[in-house]
């Protein structure tokens, strides 16, 4: 059992936060202006990519970076970042990136938003993943994609914990985060670290 990714949508159904863990099929970075700033560095529009220079992996060298797992093994890489990898690391440890028609992140967020908008479901399951939805009274929507075997109640409990813990502490009570601005996401270092800690402490994380 594992978890793949986490999205937070505000009441306008705009993606304001994104975090991923064991994802093998990565989204392409969002196109320019399609995603608010401060959602997630890993999937934001990258200026260097447009200029044709590959994005160095060192951009994501922070411990909170989702491109590199805590064990130091590359779990997934962007197509742009693929050839910056030293050839020796492409051995048995690193999983090959899944080829195929990966969606750009902004498209992916829009599709997720279509599904959860005005809907009252708590989870759905497909053959390879399960989506859990937790909606706060202020209409923030927390969306967790996990392995299909994760039980709905425990995942929703984790989302609720995330709302009452990191979200309230580092977003709602943080004067530097503009809530409901439609101009910026809610990503900040403390929130990301705290969410990361919370999710890694869940029984279904590994």
């Amino acid at each position, binding site marked *: 059992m594992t978890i*793949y990714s986490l999205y937070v949508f505000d009441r306008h159904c705009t993606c304001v936060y994104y975090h991923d863990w064991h994802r*093998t*099929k990565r989204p392409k970075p969002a196109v320019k202006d399609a995603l608010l700033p401060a959602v997630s560095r890993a999937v934001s529009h990258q200026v260097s990519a447009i200029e044709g220079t590959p994005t160095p992996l060192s951009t994501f060298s922070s411990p909170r970076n989702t491109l590199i797992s805590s064990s130091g093994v590359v779990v997934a890489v962007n197509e742009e970042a693929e050839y910056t990898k030293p050839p020796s690391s492409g051995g048995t440890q690193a999983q090959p990136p899944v080829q195929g028609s990966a*969606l750009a992140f902004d498209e992916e967020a829009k599709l997720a938003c279509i*599904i959860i908008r005005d809907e009252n479901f708590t989870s759905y399951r497909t053959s*390879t993943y399960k989506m859990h939805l937790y909606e706060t009274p202020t209409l923030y929507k927390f969306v967790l994609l996990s392995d299909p075997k994760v039980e*709905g109640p425990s995942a929703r409990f984790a989302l609720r914990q995330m709302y009452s813990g990191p979200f309230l502490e580092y977003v709602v009570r943080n004067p530097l985060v503009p809530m409901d601005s439609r101009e910026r996401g809610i990503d900040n270092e403390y929130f990301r670290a705290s969410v990361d800690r919370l999710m890694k402490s869940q029984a279904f994380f590994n």
Partner: protein
Amino acid sequence: MVVFGLWVINKAGGLVYQRNFADGLAQLSSNEYLVLAGTLHGIHAITSRLSPTGSSSGAQVIEAETFKMTILLTATGTTYLLIVTHVYSTEQNAGTKFVLLTSLHDANAEALLQKVYEAYADMGMKNPFHTPEMPIRSDRFDLRIGVLLGTISAPT
């Protein structure tokens, strides 16, 4: 388990069969049913695109606070069968017992859908007067579905 309703949706997203078995569903006009079926068809397609790990099927089970939908996409890709079942009351919403209950019901609903699919193959597809992708109007199909689901959905 209470079965509330059964829908059969063709590959274009049109509703070809719809029947309610228990009280408690909102009374909708046939137009509204058609719109909902089309919506489900779209949602089903989107859910397979959202997969974080490789290719995925569309949604198979959709759970809400008070009900559960089980969706079977047949091998020919032409037909979705859908059962809406009542899984648990909201009071039972926490604890281990609930987990057991749902997984039990899980197996039930899926096995049931397979039986419905058999009935569809027998009474729908083998019927020379039935046009594929068109609404199913067959008394024998109705009867068999009634026997299959009507008895189960009797409140226990």
